[in-house]
């Protein structure tokens, strides 16, 4: 069974530089992504439906409030150096959110600082791009999106059929199950 024409993946781009927002938007659209570009981490969080409320962090996990995602975002690509909330801060907030933590996050930076790169990757970033970002970089995004799409579909099937996780049937039987595990 072939996959019917699907909606393009939706990428949320975050960068305080207008020029870089224009660039990343064009790069992503050229690669057939649907794009929303915002100029700050706080605007990104707002769009993702994550309310910046300290009380949420104090709730015990069992009754913690779920973020209401107003818009479906399949990947977040963010600049590192931004005033107020850095890309790293944004990454941490996303990974700490139960509803958002599975969204792949990519960090961009104009500065090649190995310790910065390592920290981002260790704390959950899927890729780190050096600016200026190229089309070849954007081409690296699709596998991360497909990976989470397969995972989403599997989760959905588990939910729908109430099947034991070990018996999940991948949408395309030729995709090996290990493709959904996060690479080191």
């Amino acid at each position: 069974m072939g996959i019917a024409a699907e909606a393009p993946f939706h990428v949320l781009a975050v960068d305080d530089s207008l020029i870089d927002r224009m660039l990343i938007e064009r790069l992503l659209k050229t690669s057939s992504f649907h794009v929303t570009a915002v100029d700050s981490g706080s605007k990104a969080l707002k769009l993702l439906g994550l309310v910046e409320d300290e009380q949420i962090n104090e709730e015990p996990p069992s009754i913690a409030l779920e973020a209401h995602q107003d818009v479906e975002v399949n990947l977040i690509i963010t600049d590192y150096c931004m005033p107020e909330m850095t890309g790293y801060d944004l990454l941490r907030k996303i990974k700490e959110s139960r509803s958002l933590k599975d969204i792949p996050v990519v960090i961009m930076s104009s500065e090649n600082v190995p310790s910065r790169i390592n920290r981002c990757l260790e704390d959950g970033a899927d890729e780190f791009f050096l600016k200026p970002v190229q089309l070849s970089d954007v081409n690296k995004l699709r596998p991360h999106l497909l990976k989470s799409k397969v995972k989403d579909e599997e989760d959905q099937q588990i939910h729908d059929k109430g099947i034991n996780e070990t018996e999940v049937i991948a949408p395309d039987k030729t995709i090996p199950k290990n493709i959904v595990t996060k690479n080191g």
Partner: protein
Amino acid sequence: MEVGQMRRQWLDYTRSLFLEGFLDAQFMQLQQLQDDNNPDFVVEVVSLFFEDSERLLKDLTFALDQNAVDFKKVDAHVHQLKGSSSSIGAQRVKNACIPFRNFCEEQNTDACLRCLQQVKQEYCLVKNKLETLFRLEQQIVAAGGSIPMVELTQLSF
């Protein structure tokens, strides 16, 4: 001048800008992102760069003119200018920002002022060059021609 000649002129001029280091490969990337659906992309981004840079250069001049220079602020401006020039491929402007940031760290006002002069100079040069290039493009399009994109990507330096 007929279209073929204008196109050759555009190619030669663009080539010289690369050879002289005014532009780098990132400018090519911008050209490649331009297409029939986004025919003005390069001009739009570069125009933004002009506006942004002029504002930053003004802010830098002001910041370095203070009795007590706020080097963190100066550095932030230079960082922004370095970023945007890098994003559009304005290589010489970007390179002029590098020593500038070093002198900010050293809190050396005089050296910073010299760097600012250098950056302003490079900015003026690349602005003139790009405006000339865009004028050539307008002439080509007005004469019913198109920018020689394929030939651009085949240029060797």
